[in-house]
């Protein structure tokens, strides 16, 4: 049997290549390989920018009634028309992006982080803790997200902060379950044993050694959660249990009166509907591409 020694020049060039893959290169590579994901990212960034810069972008106060401009069709003055209170729909959409992003990212990050820590802890400790914790998750996951969120809102009441809590709680078990599966594999690797042997505490092992190694599935989940949270917020507001008037929120803009004016002033419903569709589509496309990019099994697909 002949053993061929590796070509040092070739190894060097690959190492150099790897070293030269800066975040910019990675981003460009992502864009080249995943054009739909890139489109999704662009949509998300635009929506985020709109939310952050709403005070400068919106031409009108989103909450100011103008009875001289009730239900005006889209025009140069009011790009997306006005609603039944004469409020500029474009301005409300831009400020609604802020609400959507606040609730979407806030709930997703909150639910995701709590789920991450609990899921890893459940896998790490195992035994009775794992058994009981997983049954609790089973119970929580038996309820569809929106139903559980409705139950939480009925307890805490409406408003942006309470809606965030209501959506965060159902996301915790969804994250915890997936992360636990990944953490179970990590628990068995030697460096965790080594950390235990060195006498590190549970918190340090979980947070410093296990959590970083389940970040990949966590990030993928997180991207999906943002979309789910935005949809849930819109759903709750549509049902009258989310954010309340006159706060600008997309689901709220679709609620009640938009139905009444579906035929006479359809722009009241169309634009917030489109905003929800494009945002969730953008997040889904980006999340899908991110999964492909991060997951080693799917990386070359």
């Amino acid at each position: 049997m002949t053993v061929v020694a590796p070509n040092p020049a070739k190894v060097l060039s690959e190492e150099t290549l790897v070293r030269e893959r800066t975040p910019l290169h990675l981003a460009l590579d992502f864009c080249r390989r995943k054009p739909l994901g890139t489109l999704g990212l662009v949509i998300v960034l635009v929506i985020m920018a709109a939310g952050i810069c709403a005070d400068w972008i919106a031409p009108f106060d989103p909450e100011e009634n103008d009875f001289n401009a009730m239900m005006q069709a889209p025009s140069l003055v009011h790009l997306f028309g006005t609603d039944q209170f004469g409020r500029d729909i474009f301005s409300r959409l831009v400020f609604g992006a802020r609400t959507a992003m606040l609730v979407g990212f806030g709930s997703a990050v909150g639910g995701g982080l709590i789920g991450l820590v609990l899921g890893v802890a459940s896998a790490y400790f195992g035994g009775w803790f794992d058994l009981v914790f997983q049954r609790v998750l089973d119970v929580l996951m038996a309820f569809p997200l929106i139903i559980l969120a409705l139950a939480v809102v009925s307890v805490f009441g409406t408003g942006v902060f309470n809606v965030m809590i209501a959506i965060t709680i159902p996301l915790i078990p969804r994250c915890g379950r997936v992360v636990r599966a990944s953490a179970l594999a990590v628990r068995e690797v030697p460096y965790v044993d080594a950390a235990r042997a060195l006498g590190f505490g549970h918190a340090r092992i979980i947070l410093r050694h296990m959590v970083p190694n389940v970040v990949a599935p966590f990030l993928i989940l997180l991207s999906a959660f943002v979309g789910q949270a935005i949809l849930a917020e819109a759903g709750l507001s549509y049902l009258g249990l989310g954010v309340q008037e006159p706060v600008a929120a997309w689901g709220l803009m679709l609620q009640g009166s938009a139905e009444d004016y579906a035929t006479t002033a359809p722009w009241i419903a169309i634009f917030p509907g489109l905003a929800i569709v494009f945002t969730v589509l953008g997040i889904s496309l980006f999340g899908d591409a991110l999964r492909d990019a991060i997951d080693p099994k799917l990386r070359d697909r």
Partner: protein
Amino acid sequence: MYVRTGLWAAGLGLAVAIAAGSAGAQTPKRGGTLTYVIPADAPPSFDGHRETTYATVHAAAPYYSVLIRVPPDNPASTTEFVCDLCTEMPTPTDGGKTYTFKIREGVKFHDGSKLTAQDVATSWNYIVFPPKGVSSARVSYYEMVDKVEAPDDTTVVFHLKRATNAFLPALADPYTWIYKKEILEKDPHWFEKNIMGSGPFKFVSYEVGQSIKGVRNPDYYHKGQPYLDAIVGIFADKQSVRVDALRADRAAIEFRGLPPSARDQLVKEAGADIVVQDSDWNCGNILTPNHKKKPFDDVRVRRALALAIDQWKGAPALAKIANVRTVGGIVFPGSPLAATKEELQQMAGYWPDIEKSRAEARRLLKEAGVEGLKFELLNRNVDQPYKFVGTWAIGEWKKIGLNVEQKVVPTGPWFSNMRAGTFDVVLEANCASVVNPLLDTGKYLPAKVYPENYGQFDDDKSVELYEKMQTEIDPKKQRDDMRAFEKHTLDTMVHEIVLPYWYRIILERSYVKGWKISPSHYLNQDLANIWLDK
């Protein structure tokens, strides 16, 4: 004012005359089932004595009789009352303090038992003097009643403490159903969950949150009525569902009232198949600041809240999107006791110059040290018109720098928050049945006198002014007393802020005949005179 009232009355009379004429031209047809939508998820109970919501009266009124009522063919009348269970309207004796009613003979409850004056007197005693543990929502309406008795099986006598022209309208309240004495005395709560009366329809079934069904009572005492074979009330709290039901002819009528947008849409789509009846509504939203919560204990702050709202511009604009329309004070604008526009404009919240009004509001807030005040407006989870009016008010307050968050809750928590006083400012409503300003304005009294006032204030001056008005029988002096009470309530103390009165728009399929609109969604709901032209 009198010119305006005269015109209003003339217009109303003309409309009624035209309606009556056109109805009179057709002979009612017997048969058919009326399906109607009830804009609620479910009534809190079926006990009319206890409840104040249309959800109860729309669901259960067809199964009960009352002593007297507004004329079913002219329910808009504010002065005319006719017998239901009595045989003729009595002439008061004893200086206007005694009313003796003769009760119809041969009237049967739906269980076949005979209805007598004992049942009528017992029901009224439970309404006026509820025993401990029994809830009666209208006790304050009948504070003038001293005693109700039935000396024999066909006579009921009401003895009053004093003569008052507020008594007969109060007696015609549509919730004062006559229950069977035997059941009432055995279990006064029985009627909360059961229905058994002597009305034009017999109760058949109730599916919680879905429907309530009844069939014709063949023993009904108004000859020839009811015309329908059966009725089905469908509970649908969502407006779009009700509009769709009317559009698709799955329901023939909705009795509470729909907004202008629904009217325009259905009339455009269905043309002559949809008929519209509309009327001013003895119902309006009120903003009630919680006097026990700072800074609303300060009259300057309450006054600023009132001064910020542009009623004169807001009312016509809101009328395009919500079922509200007329600016008014504490009295229904169509009544002779109501304030004129000029009188209203003297009070906080009605000033003709809104910029001056808002400047004064800002000054008062600054003086009270609460510029940029942030608070919560408690509102009911009902679109029309609560959420529209709430959103409008918040927009108006924003113009003087107030930062208000709206907290919308279902009807149950809305009531419990108001009763517990756990709110900053609440958007509530004052809805009455028969237009009876002397009693309707009781809502503005402190809770120690009128338990359904949620402002958490005490005000002896207010009670004094109200009582003076009650005992005055000269119409002009009574009107002056009403102005004094109104000015004290809305301007001096700003206990409440009255927002534009509602406007009632009823849509019905064109084959529905016989039913006439009134200024109240509680009135004329026994459905005995409805027939279907199919």
